[in-house]
């Protein structure tokens, strides 16, 4: 399947690795579908546990910066994730925080509402089908008669990739929309000038609202908030104007408004737009402007209709936000 061309550029070495991840980002790489031939013509995949049999030892044996680009997806949840983040940083020229989890913590970041013991207690003790009278917990070292078995340490906190190592670029999304990945990949391969280090790539500078096709007026005023289950969505009108929380105003565009195409309000997986560091703060500001009341009691009543602001405004970004974990 290789294209042999004397004038062909040398292939770039590409790695894709996952921390605390779901595999969706790897699927997004595969969703290049038939363009896979073009990707493969330009890149040598050197490390991708889901697809290739390269082992950790092989990465350790690589020279520093031998890998041209690593797409690191998944959050940093345990010591194995952290170790690989450091290892890949060392072996990689351009390290990309790929997907929401690496960017700002992602869905696993919701674990920051709890801690190790809180999670262990639910998973290994109190779940209704679990029978564990001796309160066994996974251990970093277990001595069996044959030898010692090891597991990584599960940290109290979930972290984004840049909270552990220096990151060159961020490619947001849960997962990133494949077309955006291809655009970034082609830019790298063709040697185009890359934006300054630390930039968000593969996403628009403006918010979702810019791309969204739903009908909207200039002046959003909300008298009452509704959960999606409380309304019959008309399929056409801006969610916020129907009283349903939509993270569009506080989220970068670039995904093709895919959730809204499915008639579900945006939940913010592309992270905050360029002018806002903290997506939840941005959303709170936006909602503050939209609430149509100046009476304190009425305002309190309207705000009370927003269930779970922390879990909605920071659905994908809790570890990467200003208050990045709950005080227990």
């Amino acid at each position, binding site marked *: 399947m290789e294209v042999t061309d004397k004038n062909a550029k040398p292939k770039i070495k590409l790695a894709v690795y996952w921390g605390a991840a779901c595999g969706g980002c790897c699927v997004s790489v595969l969703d290049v579908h038939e363009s896979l031939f073009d990707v493969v013509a330009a890149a040598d995949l050197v490390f991708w546990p889901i697809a290739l049999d390269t082992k950790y030892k092989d990465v350790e044996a690589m020279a520093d910066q031998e890998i041209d680009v690593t797409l690191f997806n998944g959050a940093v949840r345990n010591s194995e994730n952290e170790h690989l983040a450091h290892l890949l940083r060392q072996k990689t020229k351009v390290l990309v925080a790929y997907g929401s989890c690496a960017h700002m913590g992602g869905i696993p970041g919701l674990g920051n*509402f709890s801690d190790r013991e809180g999670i262990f207690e639910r998973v290994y003790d109190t779940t209704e089908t679990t029978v564990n009278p001796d309160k066994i917990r996974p251990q970093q070292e277990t001595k069996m008669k044959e030898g010692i078995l090891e597991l990584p*340490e599960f*940290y*109290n*906190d979930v*972290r984004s990739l840049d909270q552990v190592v220096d990151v060159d670029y961020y490619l947001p999304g849960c997962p990133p929309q494949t077309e955006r990945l291809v655009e970034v990949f082609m830019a790298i391969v063709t040697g185009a000038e890359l934006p300054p280090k630390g930039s968000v790539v593969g996403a628009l500078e403006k918010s979702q609202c810019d791309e969204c096709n739903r009908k909207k007026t200039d002046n959003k005023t909300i008298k009452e908030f509704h959960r999606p289950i409380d309304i019959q969505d008309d399929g056409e009108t801006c969610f916020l104007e129907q009283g349903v929380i939509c993270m569009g105003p506080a989220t970068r565009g670039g995904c093709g408004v895919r959730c809204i195409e499915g008639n579900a309000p945006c939940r913010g997986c592309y992270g905050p737009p360029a002018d806002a*560091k*903290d997506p*939840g*703060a941005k959303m*709170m*500001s936006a*909602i*503050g*402007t939209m*609430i149509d*009341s*100046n009476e*304190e009691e009425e*305002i*309190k009543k309207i*705000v*009370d209709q*927003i269930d*779970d*602001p*922390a*879990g909605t*405004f920071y659905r994908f970004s809790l570890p990467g*936000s*200003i*208050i*990045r*974990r*709950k*005080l*227990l």
Partner: protein
Amino acid sequence: MEEFKPTIVSFLCNWCSYTGADLAGTSRMKYAPNIRVIRVMCSGRVDPTFVLTAFKEGADGVLICGCHPGDCHYHEGNYKCLRRYHLLQKYIQQMGIHKDRLRLAWVSASEGKQFAELANEMTETVTALGPCEIKEVMETLA
């Protein structure tokens, strides 16, 4: 053991509440020194990131003061602040920060005495709550 002295970051709007606080000062009213004043043009200028950053940097309490409803120099600014405040309250409580650590009050330019009382009251409340540990918790990983 050292007695706990809270740090309360305070955003005061230029036209009403900052002037009111100033009046307390020029009138030689004594009030708790724990209030660290930051002057903003309007309470509507207080972005949620200001409040959250204050807690992140180690504030034990955050006090926002603005003009009384109807008196805002920019008409609507204090109402925007009021709405954001209630949202922030709901959010910080979800994050384990006690609701009494964040407070919004209306203070007019002539209410020097009220400002002093407010400062003392809030300091007493936050002292009783103890230090806000969110900064320490965020800095201690694993």
